[in-house]
C-alpha cells in the first residue's frame, strides 16, 4: 500500500475525532509492529480488504478513551453498552475511506468488533504491520495496517 493511501486512513481517523469532539486529535510516531497484541486495547474494530491489496485495517482504543469520546456526542446518554457501537462507527469510517480511496475493485468487509478478547484478534500472516498512534487528549488509540 502506498504512503498516500495510508495517509487517507490516518486523515479519516483524525477527522472522525475532530468532527465529533471539541478536542483535536494528533498523529503519533508510526512504527512497525512485531507483536500485534502489544498494540491492542479493550475495544477494537477490524475491516478486511481483498483485491490488489489484501489484509486488515484495525482501530483499537482503550475503554476510557471511548467513554470520554462518547461524552462528546450531543445528547447521547453515556453508558458502557454504547462503547462498542462507537468503535464500530470509527471502523465504518475506515471502511468508507477504503472504498473511496481504493475503488470498487476491492472487496471491503463490514467491520468486525471486539471487546476485551485481545488474544482472539489476528491479521493475515507474513505481512508487515504498521501501527500509527492516534493521540486525543490524554489518551492514545492505535490505527493498525496489515496490508500487502
Amino acid at each position, binding site marked *: 500500500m502506498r504512503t498516500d493511501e495510508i495517509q487517507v486512513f490516518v486523515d479519516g481517523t483524525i477527522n472522525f475525532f475532530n*468532527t465529533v469532539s471539541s478536542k483535536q486529535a494528533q498523529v503519533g510516531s508510526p512504527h512497525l509492529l512485531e507483536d500485534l497484541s502489544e498494540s491492542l486495547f479493550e475495544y477494537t474494530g477490524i475491516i478486511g480488504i481483498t483485491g490488489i491489496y489484501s489484509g486488515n485495517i484495525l482501530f483499537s482504543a482503550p475503554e476510557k478513551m471511548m467513554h470520554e469520546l462518547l461524552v462528546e456526542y*450531543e445528547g447521547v446518554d453515556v453508558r458502557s453498552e454504547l462503547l462498542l*457501537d462507537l468503535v464500530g*462507527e470509527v471502523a*465504518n469510517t475506515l*471502511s*468508507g475511506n477504503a*472504498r473511496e480511496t481504493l475503488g470498487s475493485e476491492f472487496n471491503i468487509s463490514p467491520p468486525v468488533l471486539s471487546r476485551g478478547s485481545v488474544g482472539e484478534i489476528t491479521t493475515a500472516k507474513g505481512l508487515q504491520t504498521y501501527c500509527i498512534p492516534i493521540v486525543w487528549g490524554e489518551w492514545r488509540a492505535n490505527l493498525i495496517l496489515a496490508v500487502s
Partner: protein
Amino acid sequence: MKFMVVDDSMVIREQIENILSDSHFDFVGSAKDGLEAVREFKLLRPNVVTMDLTMPKMNGGETIRRMMTYDSSVRILVISALKDKATALRALSSGAYGFLPKPFTSYELKSAIEKLIADMET
C-alpha cells in the same frame, strides 16, 4: 414535521434524535435494520427519514425503495460512512433526497435537513 431515524448504531440513533428534537421536529421512532424500518414506517408515517445504508437484514437502498413504494412523498436523507460517489449516486437513484457523510456535526445535520424541508415546501 415527523421524523424517523434508521441506523444500526444506537449511538447514531440517539445522536440524531437529540439534534433534530432540538430543532422542533417531532421524533416518532427509530429502527435498527431495514426490515424493522419498513414495518415502523408504515405505522408511524414520518415526513422525513434519516437512513443508514449498511445494515443487517435489509440494506438502506432496498429499504428506501420499499418506503418510496408505500409513500412517495417521504423525504429521505441518507447518512452513511460510505461516501464514495458511486454509493451516493446509488442511494439517490433509490429515491433518497440527500446524502450526508459520517461523521457529521450537529450543524451539518441540521443544515441538510433544513435544505430538504425547504425543497419540500417549494
